[in-house]
């Protein structure tokens, strides 16, 4: 039966992450953006929530409570604090969730326990490629099998935390299908190239990755012989990112709403002017609508359903929503909206990336 209330347990989690977002992330997010790094202890505190390990099955050292819905609730709260820090903190998921979804038992045994360790494991994934017409379902990085070994060739972009990563999950085109391969940082032919220079999410250092005749053993192909259901993995990523977009939008909405209530011009709060009040109302409407789309998609993933349609509609709506809301927040702050003394310009920069963030998060 239709129910739009989250469970008591989920509420508690949302509250505690929300507190972390307000009290910890918001203290450092500006500095993290300018310095392009996050303090280690903040990452550790975030990791201590055990968001990933709680999702990993018991036999691999986790708590076996995997729920995409719970995952997206966490992502919204974390991104409400700061998107870049959230993505940074949750980077191991982009490696771990595909392993959980599609890995062979051997792969799970090898990597999942590491994801339950006390400190964040140095794991990342490489999906995107530096092309305008990049299609994740048809990457140009190729995996060709020769004499029982795969050889990977291509260039990947936006690989989070690649500099320190010990293992990479690299997506490549094998005969027209997107497959994933687990690579070691010392793999022959793998090179971490220059740091990406981006408009936002500076606190998530990302890098290009070059693969040149990089040999990969067949057992390092995710899912073994049968490979992966890439659509499923992509949708797990999109739902997480969409939840993060809702968090960013909510940050902008709440901040600009409070500003508008307190900013007096012409003898009254600017929030009393229809142009501002109606803008705020639309922001609230669209954020709620987006969240419902995200929740429905997550709920369906938890039921094991195929959600290409839902994920496409959700992504379409959410990518636009977050830009519109973040831009309205900047507008509502007037001249202050353009100043880096206020957070809304940062949220606008971060919001702009969602259309090209595929693969940067997983729930």
């Amino acid at each position: 039966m239709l129910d739009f209330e989250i469970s008591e347990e989920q509420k508690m989690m949302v509250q505690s992450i929300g507190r972390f977002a307000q009290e910890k992330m918001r203290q450092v997010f500006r500095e993290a953006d300018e310095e392009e790094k996050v303090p280690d202890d903040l990452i550790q505190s975030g990791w201590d929530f055990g968001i990933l390990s709680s999702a990993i099955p018991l036999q691999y050292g986790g708590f076996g409570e995997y729920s995409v819905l719970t995952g997206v609730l966490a992502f919204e709260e974390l991104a409400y604090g700061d998107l870049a820090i959230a993505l940074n903190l949750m980077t191991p998921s982009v490696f771990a969730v595909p392993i959980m979804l599609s890995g062979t038992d051997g792969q799970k045994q090898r990597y999942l326990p590491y994801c339950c360790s006390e400190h964040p494991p140095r794991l990342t994934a490489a999906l995107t490629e530096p092309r305008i017409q990049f299609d994740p379902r048809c990457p140009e990085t190729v995996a060709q099998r020769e004499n029982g070994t795969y050889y990977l060739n291509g260039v990947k972009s936006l690989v989070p935390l690649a500099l320190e990563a010990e293992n990479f999950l690299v997506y490549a085109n094998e005969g027209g299908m997107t497959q994933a391969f687990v690579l070691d940082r010392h793999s022959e032919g793998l090179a971490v190239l220059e740091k990406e220079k981006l408009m936002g999410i500076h606190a998530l250092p990302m890098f290009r990755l070059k693969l040149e005749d990089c040999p990969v053993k067949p057992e390092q192909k995710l899912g073994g012989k049968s490979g992966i259901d890439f659509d499923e993995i992509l949708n797990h990523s999109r739902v997480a990112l969409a939840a993060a977009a809702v968090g960013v939008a909510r940050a902008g909405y709440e901040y600009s709403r409070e500003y508008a209530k307190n900013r007096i011009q012409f003898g009254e709060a600017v929030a009393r002017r229809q142009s501002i009040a109606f803008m705020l109302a639309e922001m609230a409407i669209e954020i709620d609508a987006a969240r419902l789309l995200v929740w429905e998609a997550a709920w369906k993933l938890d039921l094991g359903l195929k959600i290409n349609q839902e994920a496409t509609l959700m992504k379409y709506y959410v990518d636009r929503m977050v830009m519109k809301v973040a831009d309205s927040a900047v507008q509502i702050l007037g001249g202050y909206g353009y100043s880096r003394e206020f957070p809304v310009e940062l949220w606008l920069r971060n919001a702009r990336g969602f259309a090209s963030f595929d693969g940067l998060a997983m729930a």
Partner: protein
Amino acid sequence: MINFAIPEKITRELELANMVASQVMRSKSRYYDVNEHERPWEYINIMWPVLKGQNKRRFEAAGDDQLPEKGQTRTTALRLVLLVETLSWGDAGQYLCTPDSALGGAAIEAVGTEDQKTRFLKRFTEGEAKWGAMAMTEPGAGSDTSAIKTTAALDKESNEWILNGEKIFCTNGSLALEESEGFVVVWATVDPTSGRSGMKPFVVEAGTPGVYIAKLEEKLGIKASDTASIVFDDARIPNDNLLGSAEIQTQDSKTTKGFKGAMKTFDLSRPVVAASAMGVARAALETTQELLAAEGINVDYTTPLFRLSAVERDLIEMQAVHKAAWLLTLRAA
């Protein structure tokens, strides 16, 4: 616990509505659009016996005086929203002619006495089709409902309220007052100097002398739906046709109950109006998709955005905003 499943029981209940919508309503849609102010009797005659039966069961159960459980209210609201969406998918104009006590009935349910409920609502459990309506808007009071000028003065001698004024945009006003034994709940002020707190709802029954349908609105669409202007010219109604108390709350009182009651009635009707819009939207979206599919244009949800055609992306946008609005509507129900 988050759940987006609509219970199969409700979905099954909608099958009849779906049949009515696709077969009865759709086949007469164009007819009633061209023949404004004719009433969709095919639809009315199918709906009335069903609704009459439901009303009867509900009316009799109400005697038990049990408050519905929270989950039950929720189910009722959800069922209503789904029903309205389906019927509006059929034809929004015909749907508005559903023989029902409507907003007027809701006001009576909300603040009426047991006696009033019997006097005004029992008729919906028997006999011929009937309509209830609510009259709020006036020529000078649209969004500003607190500006209404229709007055109600108590004639102590006859113990009657005397109503004077003009109401416009009253949905089903003619069906309620002239075409059936229905009623209209009319908002009038008992004291023009006391603003919102002087606004009170009065039940005006069909056949009341001094009540005239001055005009039926000719509209852009939903032409089957009767949108009436009603003139009250020394219209007399019994004292106890007033809903709630005659007392005027002082302005500083926290409960300007009369006005708030009106607003509350409108509040409850919002998800229902939204559902009606959603039905029209779904009809448009589905028809567009069918026509395009006949031309070989379908959406493949795995195509990357930059490789979509403009029309395909339009379809995705239409589907996305439709779905977003629908989820908001369901949540509000």
